[in-house]
């Protein structure tokens, strides 16, 4: 049993009002005068009532008792009593609310979304705010938004909570916790409450400086959704379109594919719990075309999430991949020449054309960084901003570790590759210094980083800190795999021959007219205007909802870009019951977070009830007393 607490215990001093109440009661002089025949009987009654104890006077004085009870209850209500809940009583309480796509999943019985359930619980938390407590609401999605400052104003908090909407994006917790950490520098934050349905990454790269109360919301109903949608050019005009459908329960239905609004195929699917199915369509198109895939559920099937039932894919015009490989890099050129669908530059006996828009540039010359291409692979070229971090070395080195998940190094075995004349870090420089310079290390050798990757606005650049001709890489199986990975990666980046569905969050850059303001008409009916940069690219357009975003403005024709959820984590609705942080693991709370329950309203109602009883007691119709009735009959 937990004892009730008081938010404003200082108001107990109001109980001193009992003193004047008693004094006024004793001193009240104005009594109605009633003339009666004789005081004989009443004197006997009063003498009988009065006994030696002075407090006996109060015994039958129900009016005084009722007034004292009302006063005590009102003072009690002013003290703001509450029944303690399980929620912590922190002065500053950040509340993280997951509003990613899976939070829109509905319950088949109640029809409520997870976000609505979370809002109810957070509203309870807000309603139970103490006078000295403040809450900051933070929306968690692919990033994090602080909805309110730390405030104890319930109206502001509830307004922000009501205005919060879900987004068709996968959830990422790092930004939210970093934002909370930043808040903790201004106010003392001891704990954080996280409301989520559990469709979040089970690992978060973050060291917790505070406690996390992970409130996992109840699971939603069954769901099936499209989690992948991409296409690959197989010939000059034929595309293989791949879809992946995943389900959280036994589910059957069909996928319907539309090309420019016309249905061109449909395929049924049947999935068990947690299963996925790959579905392939063949599409023929030489020009750009828009594909739309729709998941049609079977009869009597319940699908709790709608955002993943439709996906869009824009196929570019079919063309070969334009690759520039420096003439001196013969090994690369030979490998590329044997790769189908690749148009290799420079052509024999033709000079280098700097104005051509390439899809991939492979060079060992620093000047070739100026060539226009979405992917650059620079062999033995040190990044300009990392010149101070490295120095030439003549020692032999080997690959020690590499990121096997990065598209460039997938399916590669680099263990037996020996490297000569590699560039190694100067003394005292570690991986962190390269990361501070904007590079991520994807392969590390015995003496330091060997391959760096840098993602800029419109370009993906790889730097090898060794020359492939000064290593045994060109003689290993890994080399053609590396070239194939580069081609594959370039196809994706340039959307040539290999196209993947655009995920929600931020739309990819769109080439338009420089300096022109464009209006974006998205599925959420918002109409933001975005200014194209000096390169004519429209960047940074947020796409929180899945759907087609139509871009209009300037003299250019209307363009559109579709954004899709395409998240296995969000569609399968497989919750994680614990989150693994860098140094600790946080499990979901066993109990629903019970906030402090204020009871002042009940106390006030009780006081009002006593007032009604008092009124009734003194205004009630007189009932016949059995004794009196008998006496009356005797008259």
């Amino acid at each position, binding site marked *: 049993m937990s004892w009730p607490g008081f938010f404003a215990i200082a108001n107990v001093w109001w109980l001193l009002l009992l003193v004047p109440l008693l004094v006024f009661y004793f001193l009240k002089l104005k009594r109605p005068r009633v003339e009666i025949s004789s005081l004989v009987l009443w004197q*006997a009654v009063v003498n009988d009532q009065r006994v030696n104890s002075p407090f006996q006077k109060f015994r*039958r004085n129900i009016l005084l008792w009722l007034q004292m009870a009302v006063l005590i209850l009102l003072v009690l209500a002013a003290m703001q009593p509450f029944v303690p809940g399980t929620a912590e009583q922190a002065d500053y309480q950040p509340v993280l609310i997951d509003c990613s796509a899976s939070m829109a999943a509905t319950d088949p019985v109640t029809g409520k979304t997870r976000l609505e359930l979370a809002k109810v619980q957070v509203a309870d938390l807000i309603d139970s705010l103490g006078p000295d407590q403040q809450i900051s609401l933070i929306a968690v999605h692919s990033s994090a938004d602080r909805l309110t400052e730390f405030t104890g104003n319930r109206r502001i908090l509830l307004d922000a909570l009501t205005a919060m909407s879900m987004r068709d994006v996968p959830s990422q917790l790092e930004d939210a916790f970093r934002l909370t950490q930043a808040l903790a520098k201004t106010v003392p934050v001891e704990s954080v409450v996280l409301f989520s349905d559990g469709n979040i990454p089970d690992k978060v790269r973050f060291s917790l400086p505070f406690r996390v109360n992970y409130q996992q919301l109840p699971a939603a109903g069954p769901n099936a959704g499209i989690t992948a949608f991409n296409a690959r050019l197989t010939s000059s005009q034929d595309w293989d379109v791949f879809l992946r459908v995943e389900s959280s329960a036994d589910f059957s239905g069909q996928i319907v594919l539309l090309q420019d609004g016309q249905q061109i195929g449909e395929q049924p699917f049947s999935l068990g719990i947690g299963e996925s199915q790959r579905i392939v369509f063949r599409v023929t198109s030489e020009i750009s075309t828009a594909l739309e895939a729709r998941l049609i559920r079977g009869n009597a099937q319940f699908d709790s999430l709608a955002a993943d039932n439709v996906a869009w894919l824009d196929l570019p015009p079919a063309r070969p991949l334009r690759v520039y490989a420096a003439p001196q890099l013969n090994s690369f050129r030979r490998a590329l020449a044997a790769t189908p669908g690749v148009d290799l530059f420079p052509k024999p006996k033709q000079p280098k054309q700097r104005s051509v828009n390439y899809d991939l540039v492979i060079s060992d010359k620093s000047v070739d960084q100026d060539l226009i291409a979405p992917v650059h692979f620079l062999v033995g070229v040190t990044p300009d901003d990392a010149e101070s971090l490295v120095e030439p070395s003549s020692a032999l080195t080997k690959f020690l570790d590499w990121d096997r998940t990065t598209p460039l190094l997938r399916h590669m075995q680099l263990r037996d590759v020996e490297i000569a004349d590699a560039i190694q870090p100067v003394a005292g420089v570690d991986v962190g210094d390269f990361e501070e310079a904007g590079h991520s290390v994807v392969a590390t050798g015995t003496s330091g980083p060997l391959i760096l990757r840098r993602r800029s606005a419109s370009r993906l650049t790889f730097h090898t800190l060794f020359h492939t001709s000064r290593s045994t890489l060109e003689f290993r199986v890994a080399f053609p795999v590396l070239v194939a990975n580069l081609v594959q990666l370039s196809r994706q980046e340039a959307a040539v021959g290999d196209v993947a569905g655009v995920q929600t969050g931020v739309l990819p850059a769109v080439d338009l007219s420089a300096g022109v303001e464009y209006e974006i008409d998205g599925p959420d009916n918002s109409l933001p205007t975005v200014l194209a940069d000096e390169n004519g690219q429209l960047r940074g357009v947020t796409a929180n909802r899945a759907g087609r975003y139509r871009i209009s403005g300037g003299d250019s024709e209307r363009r559109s870009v579709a954004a899709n959820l395409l998240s296995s984590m969000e569609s399968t609705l497989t919750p994680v019951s614990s989150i693994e942080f860098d140094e600790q693991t946080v499990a979901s709370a066993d109990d629903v977070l019970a906030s402090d329950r204020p009871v002042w309203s009940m106390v006030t109602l009780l006081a009002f009830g006593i007032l009604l009883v008092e009124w009734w007691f003194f205004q009630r119709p007189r009932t016949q007393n059995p004794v009196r009735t008998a006496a009356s009959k005797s008259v």
Partner: protein
Amino acid sequence: MTDVQARPQLTPLLSNETLARVERLRLRPNRRLTNRARGEHSVGTGGATIDFADYRDYVAGDDIRYVDWNIFARLQRPYLKLYSHEEELHVVVILDASSSMVSEEKFERARQLAAAFSTMALLGTERVSLFAATSTDERSATLQGCSGRSATRLVFEFLENVSPGGNSTIDAAVASALRVHRGKGMAIVLSDFLTTGDVSRSFNLLNSAGLEIFALQLLGPDEIEPDLTGDVRLVDCETGRTLDVSSARDLLDLYHEHRLAQQAWLSSQCRRRNGRFEMISSGSTVESILFETLLRRGWVR
């Protein structure tokens, strides 16, 4: 009936119709305490009435006019024929005319009852004395020794002229009456008995004086069922004294207990002296009191 209604009103105290019914009633004492004077109450043998009572042996000196000659002829022995003896009964009506009787028509009802009882007694050839006590400092208003039908007018005039007021207690009224009254009979005490004194002494005096006690307590409806709530200041209309009562409604049960206890005590005091006691409400009509309550309780016949 038509004649009764046509006659002028004899007294404002009682309507002619009520008076006609009252005239047919008689008081019904328990003990029949009588005076030697001739009356209508049979008290034994040896009287000169025509009602046969008993026989007894003739002894020398008896009036031979009372010898039953038929018996003598049959038995050859003289027997004396005895007739019943009837004496007079003195009815004393003591009326409490203090200020406490003013409220709720208690005094009005007491005067009506006194007139009714007096009428019954006078038409029953009883002797009637009336005493009305007002102030302890003054002598009671009296009307003594009335008898005969013609005295009803005197009784009515006396009662019509008695005005209430003063602070006399019933003890003082009884004492005042016994100072001037002589003769046995019955004493009808009409009062609210809301007095601080001990009425047992007065009852003893009445009993010792050969008066059978008929005590009639008159209480107003508000005294039987007080309608008081909250905190009030009660004022005694007789003495002017005040009494503060808090949460009066809560005390009503206690008040009622005391009222019933007082009635029980008064009733026991009367019964111990072979008397009668009755509490009546001044809210009841005099007809209801006389022809229903008192008739049913055997006060009158």
